[in-house]
């Protein structure tokens, strides 16, 4: 739990230092480096996006890992990882709205329509909201397992969309986004494999009966 707050804490700490120094980002004279770089707004947004994506993919990896390694306790962490991912996504979006555009809603709407990768990002975020909202045990009860599962299956759309959002933003043929795409492909592939595995198991059970 604390581990997942670390990247955010690191970021806030550096911002606090920067503000304290009156935004003279030369405070990090130790290595002559700005931890937040000369463009802290861009860096913050990318940093938050990176971690949001990592936690998102981590939440998607829980069930396959639990299943393959027969480690069921892992599933108990899935909700927390997912909610932290949502937290990072929300702050990532806020940094775009507040720091990058400073509430210029006209510009923001223009971006959503014109910049395809932002369109994808907004869709992903919108899909995450009902998931975050219904993440509690109370809601599972209220909705019933079937409906709840359907809402949360949205992660299968969100994860690839978020990864493509990153891929489309990067200039040139950069390696990082491609690695994430690979990871998503493996994680989704695993789910497909489990689906067919379950189907054959059920069919075999029926045949045996």
């Amino acid at each position, binding site marked *: 739990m604390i581990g997942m707050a670390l990247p955010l804490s690191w970021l806030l700490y550096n911002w606090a230092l920067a503000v304290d120094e009156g935004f003279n*980002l*030369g405070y990090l004279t130790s*290595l*002559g*480096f*700005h931890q937040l*770089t*000369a*463009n802290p*707004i*861009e*860096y913050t947004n990318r940093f938050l996006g990176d971690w949001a994506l990592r936690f998102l993919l981590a939440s998607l990896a829980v069930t396959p890992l639990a299943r393959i390694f027969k480690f069921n306790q892992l599933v108990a962490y899935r909700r927390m990882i997912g909610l932290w991912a949502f937290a990072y996504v929300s702050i990532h979006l806020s940094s775009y709205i507040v*720091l990058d555009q*400073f509430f210029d809603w006209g*510009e923001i709407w*223009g*971006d959503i329509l*014109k*910049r*395809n*990768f932002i369109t994808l990002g907004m869709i992903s975020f919108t899909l995450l909201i009902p998931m975050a909202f219904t993440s509690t045990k109370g809601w599972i009860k209220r909705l019933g397992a079937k409906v709840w599962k359907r809402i949360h299956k949205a992660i299968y759309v969100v994860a690839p969309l978020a990864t493509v959002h990153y891929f*489309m*933003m990067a*200039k*040139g*043929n*950069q*390696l*990082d986004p491609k690695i994430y795409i690979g990871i998503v492909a493996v994680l989704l592939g695993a789910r497909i494999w489990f689906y067919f595995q379950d189907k054959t198991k059920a069919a075999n059970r029926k045949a045996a009966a």
Partner: protein
Amino acid sequence: MLIKTKKPWDLSENEVTPEALYLNRRKIIQGFGVAAAAAVISPFLGWQKAIAAPDFTVIKKTNYAGDEELNSYKDITTYNNYYEFGTSKSDPARNAHTLITEPWSVKVSGEAEKTGSIALEDLIDFNALEERIYRHRCVETWSMVMPWVGVPLAAVLKKFNPTSNAKFVRFETIADPKQMPGLRSRVLDWPYTEGLRIDEAMHPLSFLVVGLYGKPIPNQNGAPIRLVVPWKYGFKSIKSIVSIRFQETQPVGSWEENNSREYGFYSNVNPDVDHPRWSQKRERRIGEFFKRKTLMFNGYGEEVASLYTGMDLQKNF
């Protein structure tokens, strides 16, 4: 007879620390510290070399950025796009120390009377250096104001007597995998290439740069010699030049080759022509919170607009 039973905590003789090692243990640990510090600091030694070098003597200083504030040396030298050293903004400052900038020569070739390999000290007249404060606008929408030191590109190109077939000039960056770790990744098709129309190259604003803030330009900024074309997006201002070729056909720059829909040959700063993936109407001046309006030709319209009269700048972006 004394039979000694070994207790668990009894060490055998050969497990005892050699005396010499033991007596010098503090020195040894300090040694590790120094080695670690050196490993961390050594990237910056290349940079420190630039800072420690004596100032250039500059015979003329011109401010082409009005009353706009200069960006700090720190900002200019730690926020760079130089993919040959890594794709993150802080990679070049960290990694460019492996670039060997001395000795340096540039190969001049193509449609000119004089061609051949020419050493940097013969290419540039270090007694005629100018300082120019230029605005720099990256295609990614960030911008800075930088005090470059160099000579007009036209003066250098004229020395080679380009023929009437020289309609364009093509430049190339060094691409040595031994010096540049980023070359391993095919982010772009190496070596980095850029080009200008001959009249753009001969324009008084086109500047061949060897220094920054009065000192030799640091590696991460394109040492030892780079181009600065202030009315175009930053990627046209090619770094660490090793080749200049006069040619009849329009050269294809590396970014244009990578994605011609997004990066055109001209790439003049133009708030009315959006990048397919983002708007070019505004920019983030490094150090400022609010975005600024982007100026046509980066504010150099008065000087360069005549180069493009009659041209459809939407088509020829």
